């Protein structure tokens, strides 16, 4: 589907969709905090505009924002995302451990993050060829 969208618009469009969904969630929730949805729309609009502007810059960040990254820039992005996932896993583990120690009821979201992350890692190993060494002569 993304091939129908101009490269420079792909990331901003993704952020826009995510932001609208987040704002809609606050609106559907209702209550006195409905105004957070307006704040979310404003922040999303600012982020989308900044991302679109960044996409025109002649930098690594600009190439990634504009979806025109070459192999080195894609590798940079991949390494950064791997680092971010490691941070998220450590944070989730810390949260789970703290929730267990405090006998709190909010332990399960951390477990879900760890399980989904672990599943994603195993799926990656399977998809990207960790078992290719089975063909031996």
């Amino acid at each position, binding site marked *: 589907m993304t091939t129908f969208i101009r490269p420079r618009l792909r990331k901003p469009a993704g952020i826009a969709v995510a932001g609208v969904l987040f704002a809609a969630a606050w609106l559907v929730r209702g209550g006195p905090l409905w105004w957070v949805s307006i704040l979310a729309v404003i922040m999303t609009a600012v982020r989308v505009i900044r991302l679109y502007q960044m996409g025109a810059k002649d930098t690594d960040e600009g190439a990634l924002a504009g979806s025109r990254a*070459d*192999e080195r*820039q894609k590798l940079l992005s991949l390494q950064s995302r791997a680092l971010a996932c490691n941070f998220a896993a450590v944070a989730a583990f810390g949260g789970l451990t703290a929730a267990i120690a405090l006998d709190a009821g909010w332990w399960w979201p951390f477990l879900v993050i760890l399980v989904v992350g672990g599943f994603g890692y195993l799926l990656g190993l399977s998809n990207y060829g960790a078992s290719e060494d089975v063909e031996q002569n």
Partner: protein
Amino acid sequence: MTSKGTFTFMRNQVREQRTQQGLSQAELAAALGVSRQTVISIESGRYLPSLPLAFTIARFFGLTVDKMFDPDEEADT
């Protein structure tokens, strides 16, 4: 070369060949289909290109890959 036998830095002829042909980094990047930043990283030896890109670079300058990239010498850092 690292102690594990894999290369982290490698001297290459990209800068020399580019300047010989009177090309700017931006012009070479456009010809190779990569960013100017990537050309800079390759020239300084901070980035080792993939095999397809290494072949593209070598063919662009009319050299072989092993003439273009010298695994026996570490790049100046």
